[in-house]
């Protein structure tokens, strides 16, 4: 009897302790400084490795202008990697729903990244649009849980169906209320090949069952 009770205590305590370590806080939100240039953004950029450093002594600006990189021909994206936040996901295509809103990953592909198939393919001129969930059902983090921790200068690599890889560099990370979504900044015409990576964030409205903000990463092609 005593042994059974002691065993219950040990097992119960173990389970509670384990569960306590599995608790997940809210997803990170972009710091205010990431919407403009800030000292800590460049610091995190150099800290993430030599890949983010542009050894170009002739120009003090580290980011090459988009015109320096030739646009790529059309090829649909197959996978995306954001090493700074540990993202490595296959990519599938999604379109608009009946109301003209962007469809979101669902079913077996829920935790994968989607590309808006009406936007340019990554590497073509224009803003290619990628999206992914921040959280899943049952409080679990999804593929872009850490997207708000992306910093200016981080690299985003997109593998394409023709075997090539388009490499982008983050220029800005923004958080915007969904009801005041910066539609033109995100989807509007661009001169060069760019990338937009979108997920949810901000306050979670329990009644509505949705996050109130979108986290948006802006990036430019730096290597075709």
């Amino acid at each position: 009897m005593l042994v059974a009770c002691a065993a219950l205590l040990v097992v119960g305590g173990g389970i509670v302790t384990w569960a306590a370590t599995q608790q997940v806080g809210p997803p990170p939100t972009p710091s205010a400084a990431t919407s403009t240039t800030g000292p800590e953004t460049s610091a995190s950029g150099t800290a993430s490795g030599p890949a983010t450093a542009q050894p170009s002594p002739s120009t003090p600006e580290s980011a090459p202008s988009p015109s320096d990189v030739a646009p790529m021909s059309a090829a649909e994206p197959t996978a995306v990697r954001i090493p700074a936040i540990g993202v490595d996901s296959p990519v599938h295509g999604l379109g608009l729903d009946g109301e003209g809103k962007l469809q979101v990953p669902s079913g077996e592909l829920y935790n994968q990244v989607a590309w808006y198939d009406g936007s340019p393919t990554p590497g073509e001129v224009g803003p290619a649009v990628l999206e992914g969930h921040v959280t899943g059902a049952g409080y679990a983090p999804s593929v872009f849980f850490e997207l708000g921790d992306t910093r200016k200068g981080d690299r985003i690599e997109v593998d394409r169906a023709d075997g090539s890889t388009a490499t982008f560099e983050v220029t800005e990370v923004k958080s915007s209320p969904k009801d005041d979504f910066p539609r033109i900044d995100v989807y509007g015409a661009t001169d060069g090949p760019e990338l937009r990576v979108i997920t949810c964030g901000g306050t979670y409205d329990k009644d509505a069952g949705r996050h109130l903000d979108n986290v948006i990463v802006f990036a430019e092609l730096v290597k075709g």
Partner: protein
Amino acid sequence: MRTSRLALCAATVALVGLPLAAGPATADDHGGELTAELSQLNDSGASGTAWAKVDGTSVEISLEAQGLLDGAPHAQHIHIGGQNVCPANDQEGSGFEGALQVSDAADQYGAVAVSLTKEPGKTGADAALDVDNFPAEVSYSYSRTIEVSEEVAQQIANGDGVVVVHGVDHDGSGTYDGDTKSDLDPALPSEATDPAACGELNAAQMSMPHGGVETGGSSTSGIEYPAALGFGTLALALGAFGLVAARRRATI
């Protein structure tokens, strides 16, 4: 925006009766939407965005602007012509202390093609200075659907339109004044018409989705593995209860 020559070719092709399908405008492929990012001229501090959609000879346009002089009318137009581009913010002109006046950049953005007045203002080039019907706030949202000629509709769809918002308080007096007269109307001070912000209307490269993106799931601030927590707590409680009960029985 360097499509004017191509547009001319396309127009010529149209004139001789060939289909326009091979034209340079990709707008038709993507729902005919155009966007512009407005940036400051004359160090005005103004900025904004514009969106337009061409449907036949109807142009639906919306414009959001910030950082303008409050309480003073801001003439706003779609210019077409020149190189169909905006001048640079630091470009010097013939106005107050080298300020850029409207005509100084005519080679770049051409002439007024559409006046973006509010109802009931007229929208042709001759309404360019209809000061009673222009927005007059520090920041504003404007939208209107405007009928234009076939030529203007085609030019805007081709990406030749440049949105210019006017009115700069160079001397910081809080109102349009000063000795320099407007190059458009000598009855007005130059501050009233000098360009404050400019953006090139380019064809969007996609059919732009509406609204935000519903990439949430649920909140992660809830309790993870509630079943494990519940079961574990129950086991703990049972074990403790059992131990206490066993000790009591032992002491009695």
